[in-house]
């Protein structure tokens, strides 16, 4: 199926852009007339993925984060969040609840669990030294 609309967003991995990213994505998704709850789920998942790029992907360095969004006629929304940072050694382990390599006073290892709960599908592609791409699929229910 062909996308009816698409966007690409690229921004520097500064934490001030976390709010910008989730609001921009929410505005894009709003074309599918989602509920308040669905919007909040999308915002939270995007915030988790973008924070991971900043904290784990780039760490003390700065890099570019790219978000791609596509909308389909049947209410399907596809979002991908990409960094060209450190990458993930063991993706399956990284996605386990409570697993974190971060500073324990600031991270709790719940990011992927939250993304998986709020999105219909979460797919992670990553290579150490190359970067990470997290892709979400979310079906926005029609309200007619």
């Amino acid at each position, binding site marked *: 199926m062909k996308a009816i609309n698409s966007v690409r967003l690229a921004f520097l991995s500064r*934490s*001030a852009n*976390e709010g910008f990213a989730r609001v921009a994505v929410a505005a894009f998704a709003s074309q599918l007339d989602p509920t308040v709850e669905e919007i909040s789920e999308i*915002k*939270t998942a995007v*915030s988790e993925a973008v*924070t991971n790029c900043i904290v784990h992907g780039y760490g003390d360095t700065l890099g570019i984060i790219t978000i791609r969004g596509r909308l389909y006629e049947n209410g399907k929304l596809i979002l991908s969040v990409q960094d060209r940072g450190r990458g993930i050694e063991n993706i399956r382990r990284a996605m386990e609840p409570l697993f974190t390599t971060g500073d324990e006073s*600031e991270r709790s290892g719940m*990011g992927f669990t939250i993304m998986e709960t*709020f999105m219909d599908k979460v797919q992670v592609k990553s290579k150490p030294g190359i970067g990470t791409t997290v892709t979400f699929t979310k079906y926005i229910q029609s309200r007619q």
Partner: protein
Amino acid sequence: MNIKFQENFNELEVLLSGEIDHHCARGISESIDFKIRRLCPSLLILDFGGVSFMDSSGLAVVMGRRKLMNSIDGSVELRHVCGAAKKVFEMAEISRYVTIKEDKI
């Protein structure tokens, strides 16, 4: 993000409003810790009534304050948790660690 403090007897109440994410989490934690260290309250109340957005960074804010309160034999209570923040707290089973005061209907 906006934080207001209310001190009553040996309770410290923190009224949070706005969005809690990684960008502001450290600042929130530091200002609450500063107050805890100065007042040594027996109960820390975190009021989420004005919070419009929260992600996993908010979990660490709560768990970190719980750790500090534990070290002074105090406890933590969450109030007015709703919407997206509520779901995030439920996923992390935060009620195993802190009291969540349910809203009256």
